[in-house]
């Protein structure tokens, strides 16, 4: 099998040399000896730019390995592609998969758990952010290397707060406070509060109350069979939104990130929920002062914190061993504070290695934009637990779609419990089929 992998390596390297001559690689002379691996990612725009810089840094930092980062479309698209080659020697060494694909990846049989290399290499996991690792750990084993991680935050218009006679430094914390403030902020042109119609935010608002999404300990102790999000915590969230919607203080800006962001930037809404990765953009685009706060929670419970979102990196099974090694080396490189600092600054994603926040360039940035610190604080303040670890189900995308539909129907004036139950039902059916067909 060794000779096998040798030949396919050389063929793949000739394949790549054609691209590197046109692309931006400069490793022609030594290409024969180097182990070349592919890194499939779904980062476009600034994310991709940053990844390419990091990869370049890695390739230059040593001369044994060569990583080629290739954009493979959106998370869904790249996952679809992975299914075409998963488990074969054509698979890339590293694939970036979104957080809701975690369960799918674990079950797929395409991957080598990260824990294997951590144990072999005695890698010190504690240097990484625990609240991020939690999500990707199942039964205490780390399956994939966290990479681009984000959490939701609440972003608000400080100028509007001032105009409404509110304290711009004190953002509302509970559902009731938000409802209250939203009512005060509401003007003819401006809604008080908004949230992207996206399941992720709902999950977060449930989790911060300590609510579980599905049974079987949020799917972490076995295959989940029943949705729990239509329980009291979920209902709280829906009531919260419903109240504002009915009061006319809630603005519905649909399912697209850019729509809600431009609504905020054009002062159509005073508070909204965004990803921590969107903070930089919000500050940059807004012609007013922007505040960032923790996401609100129901009044009767204490805040649990947030669940990590974003994506992680997975190592393929069935590829040559030296490729796996190369991939592991690269992942370690990624986790270094310098790289993470750069990553954090470029993209607004968290640094998985908190030491990165001690880097000077991060400090400088934070000084200039204290808002960034809020996002990190919120993450670090999170109480670890089943709820904030996040649910693990294979049909997550479908379930999220059910939530979107439920939210949309809610905004049309339907009963919160009714629409939630319908979403739960749909999720249950999906889980049932998934469990039935599982090998």
């Amino acid at each position, binding site marked *: 099998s060794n000779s096998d992998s040798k030949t396919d390596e050389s063929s793949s390297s000739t394949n790549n040399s054609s691209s590197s001559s046109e692309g931006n690689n400069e490793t022609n002379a030594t290409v024969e000896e180097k182990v070349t691996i592919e890194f499939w990612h779904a980062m476009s725009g600034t994310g991709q730019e940053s990844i390419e810089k990091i990869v370049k840094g890695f390739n230059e930092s040593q001369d044994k390995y060569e990583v080629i980062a290739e954009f493979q479309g959106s998370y869904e698209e790249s996952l679809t592609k992975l299914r075409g080659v998963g488990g074969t020697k054509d698979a890339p060494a590293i694939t970036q998969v979104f957080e809701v694909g975690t369960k799918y990846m674990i079950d797929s049989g395409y991957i080598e758990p990260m824990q294997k290399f951590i144990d072999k290499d005695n890698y010190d996991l504690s240097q990484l952010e625990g609240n991020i690792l939690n999500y990707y750990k199942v039964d205490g084993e780390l399956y994939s290397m966290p990479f681009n991680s984000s959490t939701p935050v609440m972003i608000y218009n400080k100028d509007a707060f001032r105009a409404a006679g509110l304290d711009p430094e004190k953002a509302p914390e509970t559902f009731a406070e938000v409802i209250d403030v939203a009512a005060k902020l509401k003007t003819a042109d401006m809604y008080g509060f908004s949230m992207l119609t996206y399941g992720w935010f709902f999950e977060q608002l449930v989790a911060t109350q300590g609510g579980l999404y599905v049974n079987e300990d949020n799917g972490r102790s076995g295959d989940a069979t029943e949705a729990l999000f239509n329980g009291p915590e979920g209902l709280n969230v829906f009531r919260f939104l419903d109240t504002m919607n009915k009061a006319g203080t809630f603005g519905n800006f649909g399912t697209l990130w850019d729509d809600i962001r431009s609504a905020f930037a054009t002062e159509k809404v005073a508070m909204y929920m965004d990803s921590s990765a969107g903070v930089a953009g919000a500050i940059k685009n807004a012609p007013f002062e922007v505040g960032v706060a923790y996401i609100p929670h129901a009044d009767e419970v204490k805040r649990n914190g947030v669940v990590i979102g974003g994506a992680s990196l997975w190592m393929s099974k069935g590829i040559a061993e030296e490729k796996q090694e190369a991939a592991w080396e690269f992942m370690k490189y990624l986790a270094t504070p310098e790289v993470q600092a750069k990553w954090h600054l470029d993209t607004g994603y968290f640094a998985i290695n908190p030491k990165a926040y001690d880097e000077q360039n991060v400090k400088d940035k934070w000084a200039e934009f204290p808002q960034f610190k809020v996002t990190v604080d919120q993450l670090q303040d999170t109480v670890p637990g089943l709820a904030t670890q996040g649910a693990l189900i294979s049909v997550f995308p479908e379930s999220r779609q059910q939530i979107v539909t439920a939210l949309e129907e809610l*905004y*049309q004036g339907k009963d919160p419990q009714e629409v939630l139950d319908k979403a739960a039902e749909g999720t249950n059916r999906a889980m049932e089929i998934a469990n*039935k067909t599982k090998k």
Partner: protein
Amino acid sequence: MTFWRKSVDGRTAILYLLPSVILFSVFVFYPMFRTIYLSFFLTDQNGTPAINVGFENYLYLLGSSEFQNSMKATGLFVFYTVPLTIILALFFALLANEKLKGVGFFRTMYSSTMGISVAASSVIWLFMFNPSIGMFNRLLSLFTIQQVQWLLDPEWALISVSISTIWMNIGFSFLILLGGLQNIDEHLYESARIDGAGYLYRLRRITLPMLSPTLFFIITISLINSFQTFGQIDILTKGGPSQSTNLIVYSIYREAFINYQFGTASAQAVILFIIILVVTILQFKLGERRVHYQ
């Protein structure tokens, strides 16, 4: 197969059709049979058939209100887009068919929408539909008309998507119809003009009948394409709000590529196929009779 050997024409036909037949077999028929096959299964997360459920997928779909809603939305969408696209494209094509200086420029403008990918044009439309900064709402507010939540209001979303779809398809229909118009022999108009036939009369009695093969073609194609609209839905509304724009193909896409339910996705594809087939057969039966070929 013996009847093939009967005529030289038959044998030649095989030769001429061979490339198409081979490619279709590999890239269309084989996947189609696979789709039909899959539609009788529940698949696992990797898309391999796991449990044979017979017609259950179909029964489930036909009973599901979501799917019924999809069908309804698709029907409405087809009804909104096809006639308008063709009428507008025909109007533009007639304008651009006049022998005038600089008409090539206008032709390029009209057909330009064909040069923009669905993804790119959807993004542009997204901007225009944007509730806060979009063109449309700002125009409405300029005239102090009640603003419309174009893509967010279930009442409007399908119409908005239809408007953008009409725009996207107009370039293509325009080009086809213009080609058809160019193909009409100028001489046919001469006698009519001498007889004193005005523009509309010539349009009705000569242009449209002579254009009928092209019209027939573009109607058929537009119907089929419209049933299969996907890209703009994915970008503009993702099927929402409240499923109001969840057209069948988008639903198939979501089922297959997001939910990994290839069984039901395939069943939907098969149902869609049958619907389009019926529509097309009707179209051929009713339409081609009115088509005038040379």
